[in-house]
């Protein structure tokens, strides 16, 4: 019998192609393409000088390229793309196989069931990273040079951002892999978590916000939040937080969430009985 690790790698091999060419990838490509379209549009607009990026009302100001990039990383990638991909893919790791009736072929092999989940989770990580991270790089090179920004100076921040997105995909993916393995209606539960629970609890004083992933991810965002009015409005609209914990606390907390939820997902798949729908 294959060891847990080797079995997971083989399930990963089997799942990666299936996942990359699935219908969901079309959706993911659109999601990843959205900010690239915005970046290219901004670039064209800035080059033609037809549009001046100003805030209103109040004194006129212009966001620099790095600020715009930072805004897009937080507003689009971290608060939308990462959790949404986590929900859509994470909850589907087992649910898809159950719904399609193909889980039997995997569960009837002499490998630990948990390895199946881990293999598929690894495929999810690679699949989403391969599509999302290049999109971030394209946005970076399109947006950062605008309005006097320097590509070279901001490069370390790009690397951190890429790492941050990777961490976000890993943690959300693990959390929703557990939800998908455990619940019968994982999609709705996942959506309620990221768009119902997280935005609310981070506004509640006390420890409630500690029960979210977004709170810790925010603590790792390296970009200094501009203090101008539009940014404040946006921050308010996006329900971000003022007092973020230290980076190491955030990383530790995310590591704990990742380990606990992935472990719980593995245990669930090991022990739970799945009755196929067809």
């Amino acid at each position, binding site marked *: 019998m294959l060891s847990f690790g080797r079995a997971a790698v083989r399930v990963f091999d089997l799942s990666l192609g299936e996942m990359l060419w699935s219908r969901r990838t079309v959706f993911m490509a659109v999601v990843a393409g959205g900010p690239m379209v*915005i970046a290219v549009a901004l670039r064209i607009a800035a080059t033609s000088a037809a549009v001046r*990026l*100003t805030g209103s009302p109040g004194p006129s100001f212009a966001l620099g390229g790095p600020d715009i990039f930072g805004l897009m990383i937080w507003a689009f990638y971290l608060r939308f*793309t990462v959790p949404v991909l986590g929900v859509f893919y994470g909850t589907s790791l087992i649910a898809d196989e159950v719904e399609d009736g193909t889980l039997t072929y995997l569960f009837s092999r002499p490998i630990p069931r948990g390895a199946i989940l881990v293999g598929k989770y690894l495929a999810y990580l690679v699949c989403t990273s391969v599509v999302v991270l290049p999109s971030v790089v394209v946005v970076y090179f399109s947006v950062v040079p605008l309005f006097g920004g320097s590509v070279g100076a901001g490069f370390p921040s790009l690397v951190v951002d890429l790492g941050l997105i990777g961490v976000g995909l890993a943690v959300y993916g693990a959390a929703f892999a557990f939800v998908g393995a455990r619940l019968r*209606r994982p999609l709705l539960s996942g*959506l309620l978590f990221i768009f119902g629970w997280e935005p609310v609890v981070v506004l509640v004083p006390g420890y409630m916000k500690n029960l979210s992933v977004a709170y810790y991810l925010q603590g790792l965002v390296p970009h200094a939040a501009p203090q101008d009015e*539009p940014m404040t409005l946006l921050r308010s609209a996006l329900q971000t937080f003022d007092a973020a914990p230290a980076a190491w606390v955030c990383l530790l907390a995310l590591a704990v969430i990742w380990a606990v939820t992935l472990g719980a997902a593995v245990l669930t798949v090991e022990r739970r009985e799945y009755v196929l729908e067809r």
Partner: protein
Amino acid sequence: MGIHDQSYRRYAGPRTEPGAAWSVIAWSGIRALLSRRLFLLVLLFAWSQFVVRAVVFYLSANFPSMELIAPSAQTFRDFFDQQDFFVFVVTVYAGAGLIANDRRANALQIYLAKPLTRAEYVAGKAGVLVVFLLLVTWAPAMLLLVLQTMFAGSLAFVRENVFLVPAMTVFALLEVLAATFAMLALSSLSTSARFAGMLYAGAILFTTAIFQTVRGVTGSSAASWISFSANLAQVGDVVFGIAPRHDTPWGISLLIVVGLIGVSLVVLRWRVRGVEVVT
């Protein structure tokens, strides 16, 4: 002694008039959803805002010191705004599988082999969603208006805001029809209810995220036409007679909402077929 014919006899009783078959589909869908406890729980939660506002209405009507929180036309507009979340949840929960599940079970061809037109089938499926969405938007809003009158013991508020009844009805219908047909169209594109739900949620959330990003970068809400939710909100403001919240002309927002319903109907016309001809 007479010998009775024991052979097969055709049904000779009354039949429903053609054109009413949609109601059979709608009722069966409604009953199926009502039998799910989780769905009842969602509906219950969807009425929580109603309960809170009813209490506020009572307090403001009976305690002069509470006049500050007395309802206005804006209150009803806000009510619809805050129900958006439940509209989203109910649409995904109740609507994602309406056609996808039939396609998965190859039931579409069985439906359409009956004396039932495609339009009736779609109307029946739409009926399910429309009923529940009105139940979380129009119904509680109208009931709130009735409660306000009863608590105040006067028709003054209704007389002053007589436009509220048509405004709430028109906006609720627009919102419900847009959500219903968009969800049905996406449901018809897939054999998986979960995937259809993902498509709908993705479309709503993605367009909103793009709009918010552009807004943050440009400092202007002129790109609100990108977002499905922002367009509805824009039209809603106009219907309730308040200043539109975004910089996009409301006519464009209305056009986009109506266009979305139109595109959804085209998709449904294309996808709802008993037999798929592969060329």
